[in-house]
């Protein structure tokens, strides 16, 4: 480990399990006899802005929980980059989710960029909930050289309640963990960011009406789908601000009742007569 104190920033959207990873990682470091400081980002921002955690560990005591430049940054969604970009220095190792973030979103000229397509792997192979376990395993192996079995024990202990409720979840989580621990990180050549939030409007028209859906405002709450009286809405493939699917509209089925607009909390959908 590079310095006396190693500084880590973890960032993503709320719901991606950033604080869960941070807690597990901190406990793992304590178990390995380090002094550890972990603070989640506080403030009213904690609801609708990226979720960030700051971790430091050292063999000697840590005197101050804040820092300017990180040794390791892990970032799992594009919107979070802006929040944590200032912590990336020329010697910072950056691990990102290449299935949600394209390489060119990092404006910094940093050659220490590494990736694992965690969201894609989770969605397509290990179950959506395991995206943070994939990221955690890749981080702990590649940047901290943390022993595999010891780390899994802590994960199993921390997520024990969830695993007890759902046995297949536990099995999938372990598979994801094993896979990611042995995954050789992407560098220079990255997976396509097909799970990134869509920046473009969705516009659907027929002779009577026009529907507009704004993925970068949609939080995937599903209220519009619930409130549509004719089932003209369902979740599609395009992703919204939190990486959740946004509704798709069957414009011919729609009767223009206005409910989706009326109930959408985030001004992300509206249908109007032509």
């Amino acid at each position, binding site marked *: 480990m590079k310095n006396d104190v190693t500084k880590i920033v973890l960032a993503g959207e709320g719901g991606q399990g950033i604080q869960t990873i941070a807690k597990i990682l901190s406990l793992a470091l304590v178990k390995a006899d380090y002094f550890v400081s972990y603070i989640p980002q506080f403030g009213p921002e904690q609801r609708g802005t990226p979720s960030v955690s700051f971790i430091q560990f050292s063999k000697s005591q840590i005197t101050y929980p804040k820092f300017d430049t990180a040794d390791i940054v892990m970032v799992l969604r594009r919107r979070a980059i802006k929040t944590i970009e200032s912590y990336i220095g020329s010697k910072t190792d950056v691990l990102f989710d290449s299935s949600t973030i394209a390489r060119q979103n990092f404006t910094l000229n940093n050659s220490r960029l590494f990736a694992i397509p965690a969201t894609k792997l989770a969605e397509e192979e290990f179950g959506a909930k395991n995206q943070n376990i994939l990221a955690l395993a890749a981080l702990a192996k590649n940047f901290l050289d943390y022993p595999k079995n010891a780390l899994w024990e802590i994960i199993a202990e921390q997520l024990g309640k969830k695993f007890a409720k759902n046995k297949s979840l536990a099995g999938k989580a372990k598979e994801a963990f094993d896979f990611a621990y042995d995954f050789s990180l992407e560098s220079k050549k990255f997976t396509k960011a097909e799970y990134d939030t869509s920046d473009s409007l969705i*516009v659907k028209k027929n002779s009577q009406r026009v529907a507009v859906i704004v993925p970068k405002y949609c939080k995937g709450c599903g209220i519009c789908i619930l409130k549509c009286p004719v089932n003209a809405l369902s979740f599609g493939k395009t992703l919204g601000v939190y990486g959740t699917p946004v509704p798709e509209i069957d414009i011919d089925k729609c009767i223009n009742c206005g409910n989706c607009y009326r109930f959408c909390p985030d001004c992300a959908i509206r249908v109007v007569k032509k």
Partner: protein
Amino acid sequence: MKTPNEQFAMPQCLNSKSKPSLFCPGCGESIILKHLGNVVDSENIQSKTTLVIDIGCTLLSWNYFNFDIIQSHHGRSVPVSVGYKMARGSRVVIALMGDGGAYAIGLQSLLHAAFRNDPILAIVINNTEYSMTGGQMAPTTVPNEVTTTSPLGKNASIFGPAFHGPELVRQIANSKAFIARASVGNPTLMDSIITKAIENQQKNNSFSMVEILSICPTNWKTDAAESFEFLAKLEKIYPVGEVKKTLDKKSEDI
């Protein structure tokens, strides 16, 4: 028709830079704010509206609109609004607060504003708990409802029944005051109730209070369908519509 752009599904007076908002996915407060924006648009009062927000999740709306927004303290959006209105009588002044702010720490301010007929509109968001701090039991928590501080369900014999704010305020409010309850379950009715309340301030220079039943999927730990199911239960306990005085004449005359 407007050409489709990112503001297509937004009331005009909304600040598009506040999007995506700070509210959780599926938050009822966000639905309420959108409808408040619709009423401000249709009443054509954007240039003279001032919103005073409380502590609680309402503070997440500090940049929601393209009109003035004042941040007050917990339970203090009403007295700040009253003072502001005294100084700037031509403004349309709206205080926005949670049920904790309105009925626990700030109740005396609300009661006296209603009693004095201070010409402001108090909007109280009733989601049956303290949301911003993690879903603790509030006066409005209904019997047997599970919250983080009533993990076995609210015991009404110890903590009292569901707190009916508008009904309480009605008993001492000036007769010109407009007092009603709406629900995010019925946005069209919510629009017309908010409109009436704003007109009562503009035309009659009088106090209005609107409680709005809302959903908090984060603390309720509900999905869309479950949120609206619980809201329907709340609508049975907390009836929606204008609230009328129930005390008899005699007690008022005393």
